[in-house]
């Protein structure tokens, strides 16, 4: 068994339960921004892609790593951007836009 497997399993379990409890409380009103925000957070795989692409490896690992960096980073940038845009649109009555 690889190093860290059991501790990763603990982390996965706890994060799964925590995520369930936190996300359960998100109002259905915000389910679309929720999905785009979790996409942006999930794009943290970009750090793994950066390491693969910039570490001495094979040509294949550098190319695939670089594609992964671009794909994940576009999610990170686009995901945060659109989530914020959507949330800015949610207003209460009586507060007209400037």
């Amino acid at each position: 068994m690889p190093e860290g497997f059991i501790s990763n399993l603990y982390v996965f379990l706890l994060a799964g339960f925590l995520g369930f409890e936190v996300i359960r409380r998100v109002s259905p009103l915000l389910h679309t921004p929720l999905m785009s925000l979790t996409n942006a957070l999930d794009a943290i795989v970009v750090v793994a892609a950066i390491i693969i692409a910039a570490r001495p490896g094979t040509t294949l690992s550098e190319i695939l790593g670089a594609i992964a960096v671009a794909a994940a980073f576009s999610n990170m940038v686009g995901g945060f951007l659109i989530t914020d845009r959507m949330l800015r649109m949610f207003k209460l009555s009586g507060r007209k836009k400037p």
Partner: protein
Amino acid sequence: MNITGMDLTTVQYLTDFSYIVAIAFFILSLKWLSSPATARRGVLVGEIGAALAVVTTFFNPELVHFQWVLIALLVGAIVGIPLGLVQMTAVPQRTAMSHAFGALAAALIGITEYYLRIPNITKFEMVEIAMEVIIGSLSFTGSLIAAGKLQEWLPQRPIVYKGQNYVSFTVLGAAVLAALILVFSPTTPFLFPAMVVISLLFGVMLVTPIGGADMPTVIALLNSYVGLTAALLGFVLNSKVLVVAGALDGSSGFILAVVMCKAMNRSFTNVLFGAFGQLQVSAKAVQEERTVHTATPEEAAAILASANTVLVVPGYGMAVAQAQHKVREMLDVLTKKGVDVKFGIHPVAGRMPGHMNVLLAEADVPYDKLIEMDAANSEMPQTDVALVIGANDVTNPAAKTDQGSPIYGMPIIEVDNARTVMVIKRSLNPGFAGIDNPLYYIDKTMMLFGDAKAFVSSIVKELTGGGE
């Protein structure tokens, strides 16, 4: 890049520490998303966490060449910024595209790890990598197909053929078999790329038979697969930040998928393999002529203006007709006339979870005017007019009364309990699922035939013209 002159252990500690801070920020980010009042703060901490993690990664002394990374980051930004600026009507396909990108990134890293580790890969590592690559690859093509359907580059209707589920499962079985052989013999020639290709193919076969109306569930399920892929990648790379981010994304997608399924009274299996709405289409051809009441924009405007309470029930048709801005104008005029207007939102209205809410928010409808299905139903008996715009199945009373109906048992917005019902619709043709809607034939229903945007705009014209 060892620009700081720190030794490897110190850098490692700093990186780990920054990742822990990033994880804490991610969790806060989701917690603050629970209310519209704090949600934007949530996005900000999420951004700070992500930026911190990305920047500290660059201090890793193992990293030697950055030219491709920097170009890739630039490309990512060039692709990502327009994807962050799309119209709200295009958000479902944008979301499906971002699932595809997320799955692609994770799958590519898994594939790379395989080639870097063979021939000295352990059985355990091989199991992890194979699972990660299979789920990542199928989520990639599945999300692409979903995006194609939502963009209407591919037909929205379910595409089915006889014995489809057997064929699909055989393909998935082949991918799993390839993975099993790889566990015992990781360097079998061509087997790993074959496994990837088969998984890509399975993703296509998984989503192609699913129709447009089921997209909310499918998008949520794909979201949860992408999260699972990232978490598995965390196991492969022994990276806890990936395990946590993947678990959060995965549980979010899973919760949304469960909410969507409940709102349609269907199971995951039924959504994925049921090819909803395929068989009923032929049955509806034979039906006797029934009378419907129709009304003109003038009549509709007069009734709306004299009502005390109006409940608007929007659906995907409103998005297709781009009618949301006109609907907001109608809201403004009616509010000025003292009519209490609210919007009843069915969880599966539209093409993704929460789709109607962002569309109406984009049109400047205040979110305190948007109420959920249960609240809408409890207010319904006191509602003078229920105005259905581009929604069909989510208001179909057959779901409550007709045991033979394919949507029997699905919770609906019970507009038939309002005093008057108005339905804006192009024609009497059944909706996507091809299910007849008895709502249109009851006495208190008035059909307003026409394009949703044009009709609402005529109503607004009548209301402003006639009110002077």
